[in-house]
């Protein structure tokens, strides 16, 4: 690629601020004017998506946008910067927010949930923080927004305000804050104090391999601190918060715990591996194979656990951990194809998994059923939902012509670039496991009939639930056929 031109532009900042302005509207409208309140959410979502998407043509043309919010420390500003991978992630999150908003209206009203104003407010704040992470230009900025996301999702996770919410919330915050405060913060401080070139080196741009000056032991320690510090990435053994967070209402699980929050985790890993360590340094590091092994272990173990889960949302959560392992695997491979595949997988898996969660929620709204074993015969009664579930499953498994195939393809290429055939084998086994734990859900729904109650009056969930999941299912196809610009954003193709 030619040298990028850096242009100062307020749009990255806008994409971060718009949801916050939306919050004011949401709170002002409140429970009394429900439709107005949801209008504000929609306006914020559409405006954010428009701002984010409007940057794509220019970024594809080799432009990098920057916006400095304020100077935090000497030499380390709170700086937003838009490059390809960040923009790809931001686009996916902001576009899916629109779909999720529509879905949330159907879900929350369908179940007569309480405190919806609080729900929509913190939802918007979370999306704001997500944009911040996607566009962060240095380690400090990314840490700010990372913490903002942890705290702002807590009220969403504990939405039910009961005992299970307390357990889930404790696990959630315990893992996320423990890792970020006790592992990440020292790692940041370490970089701040000891990195060659002082504090400037915390920036993601410029020379890769800034930590190359450290001794190899130090590098390994730093790598571990960062990898486990970003616990949102769900690398084992710091993954348990994700199944715990499933007590949240399904729109939260769908957008935040399949797209925004978890992808923020792996995206941070991408930044650290690619832009702080640099792939050359990583490949020359002795213990780096172990990181690949760790990612592979996460993939396989979580898939095996997913097999045994009867609760649909928990099964999907463990599937998400596995898929996050793919993204982590791609960046630990430290090859261009692998890293590009990771970034792509952020988008591809997002679209597939959000469909699956939408379906799980729609089933719950329509029937009140949560368990896979209860779904027999549901395919006939809810054909659109279960059809979308099938498509989403196939995309996550990675079959063409669905989006999930593209990213897995590049992940495999990335592994082969390093002559790591065993990684490809792991990918294959894991895909097989995906088949085992995802397909039975749809198959049971379509091909097993329920003898006990033939006609219990079950029908599709409200259209506001069904439309988004149909759209995201179609999106899985679209991502396959329209993957060319995505490849360029991810830095694989020119």
């Amino acid at each position, binding site marked *: 690629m030619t040298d990028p031109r850096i242009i100062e532009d307020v749009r990255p900042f806008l994409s971060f601020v718009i949801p916050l302005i939306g919050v004011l509207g949401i709170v002002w409208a409140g429970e009394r004017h429900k439709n107005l309140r949801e209008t504000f959410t929609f306006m914020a979502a559409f405006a954010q998506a428009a701002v984010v998407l409007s940057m794509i043509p220019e970024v594809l043309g080799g432009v990098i946008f920057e916006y400095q919010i304020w100077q935090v*420390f000497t030499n380390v500003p709170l700086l937003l910067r838009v490059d390809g991978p960040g923009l790809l992630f931001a686009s996916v999150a902001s576009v899916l927010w629109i779909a999720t908003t529509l879905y949330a209206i159907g879900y929350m009203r369908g179940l007569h949930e309480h405190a919806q104003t609080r729900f929509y407010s913190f939802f918007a704040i979370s999306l704001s923080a997500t944009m911040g992470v996607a566009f962060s230009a240095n380690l400090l900025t990314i840490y700010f927004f990372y913490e903002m996301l942890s705290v702002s999702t807590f009220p969403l996770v504990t939405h039910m305000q*009961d005992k299970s919410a307390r357990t889930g919330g*404790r696990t959630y*915050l315990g893992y996320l804050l423990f890792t970020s*405060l006790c592992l990440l913060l020292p790692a940041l401080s370490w970089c701040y*104090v000891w990195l060659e070139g002082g504090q400037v080196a915390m920036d993601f741009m410029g020379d890769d391999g800034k930590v190359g000056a450290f001794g190899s032991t130090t590098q390994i320690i730093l790598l571990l601190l960062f990898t486990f510090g970003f616990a949102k990435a769900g690398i084992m053994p710091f993954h348990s918060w994700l199944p715990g967070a499933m007590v949240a209402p399904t729109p939260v699980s769908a957008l935040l715990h399949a797209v925004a929050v978890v992808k923020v985790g792996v995206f941070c890993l991408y930044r650290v591996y690619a832009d702080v360590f640099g792939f050359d340094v990583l490949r020359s590091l002795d213990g780096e194979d172990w990181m690949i092994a760790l990612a592979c272990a996460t993939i396989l173990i979580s898939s095996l656990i997913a097999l045994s889960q009867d609760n649909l949302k928990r099964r999907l959560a463990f599937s998400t951990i596995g898929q996050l392992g793919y993204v982590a695997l791609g960046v630990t491979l430290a090859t261009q194809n692998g890293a590009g595949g990771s970034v792509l997988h952020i988008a591809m898996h997002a679209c597939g998994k959000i469909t699956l969660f939408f379906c799980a929620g729609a089933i719950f709204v329509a029937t009140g059923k949560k368990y896979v074993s209860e779904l027999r015969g549901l395919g006939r009664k809810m054909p659109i939902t279960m059809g979308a579930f099938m498509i989403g499953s196939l995309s996550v498994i990675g079959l063409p012509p669905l989006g999930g195939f593209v990213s897995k393809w590049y992940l495999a290429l990335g592994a082969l670039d390093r002559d790591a055939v065993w990684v490809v084998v792991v990918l294959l086994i894991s895909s097989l496991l995906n088949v085992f734990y995802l397909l039975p859900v749809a198959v049971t729904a379509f091909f097993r009939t329920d003898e006990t109650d033939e006609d219990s009056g079950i029908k599709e969930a409200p259209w506001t639930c069904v439309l988004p999941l149909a759209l995201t299912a179609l999106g899985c196809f679209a991502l396959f056929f329209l993957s060319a610009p995505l490849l360029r954003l991810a830095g694989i193709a020119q």
Partner: protein
Amino acid sequence: MMDNAIAWIFIFPLFGSVLCALLGMVKREACWYIAVISMAGSFLAGAVTLIQASGSPSHVVSYVLGGWSLDSYPRGVGIEFRADLLGALITLVVLGVGLLVSIYSKLPVEEETPDKEPLFYSLFLLQVTGLAGICLTGDAFNLYVLIEVAALTGYGLIAMGSNRAAAATFNYVILGTIGASLYLLGVGYVYITTGTLNMVGIHDAIVASVVTEKNLADSASMQVAFVLICLGILIKMAFFPFHAWLPNAYCHAPTTTSSLLAPLVTKVMIYVMIRVVLTVFGVEFSFDSTLWAEILPWLVVVAIVSAAIMALAQREIKRMLAYLIVAEVGYMVGGIWVYNYYGMIGSIFHVISDACMTLCLFLGAGLILRKCKTTNFDGLRGLFSKMPLTMTGFFIGGFSIIGLPPTCGFFSKWYLITGAMVSERWEYLVALLFSTMVMVVLFFRLIERIHLAVSESGENLGKGHGDLGLTEEQTRFSEGPLSMLIPLLLAAAVVLVIGIYNQDVVNQIETFLENLPHEAELPKEAVSK
């Protein structure tokens, strides 16, 4: 009048205090107005002093009170007020906190100590005079006098609280007096050895003696003096294990008293320690001459960890906060004694930010106490819908204590952690992180108790769907009075603003550290890679 800004800092509250006592006999309602006006005037004078200090070429404003100059007889005995950037910054914090608390105090004082307003406000203003004096004086003996002014008025203010306040005060009197006496003893040694009481004079004497045969840095009397002074200050600042007076004193004191004392007293004593280390004895003497610099960092670790654990065991907000203060004292002492540039910045910055966030928390706790009649964890359910603004202010303070960005607590903790890293004081780093985690637990447990319909043992109290198991009456929006709410929200705003504009504060601190007497320098670079 602008030239005498330092003097006006004291004139306002000192004469305000006398006026309260006199006018209060005739018209009790006037006291609050006098207090607020004197605090506002004093605060303005403090701001002017800070501007003068940062504007002057030497970054110091000196003011000799009543012609008691150093050259007059007896030599070295004078009343000099000396506002360098550090002193002026902390003074401004003291006066700012005093101003906010004085506004806040209108209703609590009327309700909790009826008919005692004149007494209360004259002590209140004297207290602020004493604290501001500690931060500005340039004389080691005057410092002792001002510490006693602050302490004696503090005893009075605390004793006006609930029935058990008297016993708590007695405890405080004993320990406080021991601390002050140790300090005085140390100053005595210093005076005998150096022949001066002026802080800069003492330091000059130490530096001048290095080239002579009688090197004061090696003299036993100076070392004993140093340890005695440090020990005295540690007792006064409630450094674990000398903290026993603090929790009871702050819990049983009236709301206004605890809101004023909790953010200031311990922090001002940290300031004294920084002053003693940097200005009086100097960097080289403090960190090289005694074993102290080897022992203290380990005591700090013990202090932070034990205070954090004790905070965890509390079931009542004010008591929990009191132990948090003890832990925070450990942070700041540690920041000084890791002995480097960043640690010192962290420590000074933490004095400022901790004062602001503790103020937030205590003002919030006062509002909760007034509305719920309890600050026990069990009585707090549903407060988010009942007092959303109070809770916002309170938890901004809480998040700052945890150290979440962009509150000021994050930045001061950042510098402390960096300081620990640079000196490779891993034990201090671990203690910091441990107590950070404890604070996460403390505040999110509080959020749980308020937000969720679950009892401590884990039973569901409501019927689900956000039902908290309370009557509508108990959850209906009902905020505290504006005169209490506005100071809280201002304090919360200050926590955020100092966080966002931390560079400006840190720049002032850096200028101060770069202009230390005799070009003393703290190590900046990391020892190894």
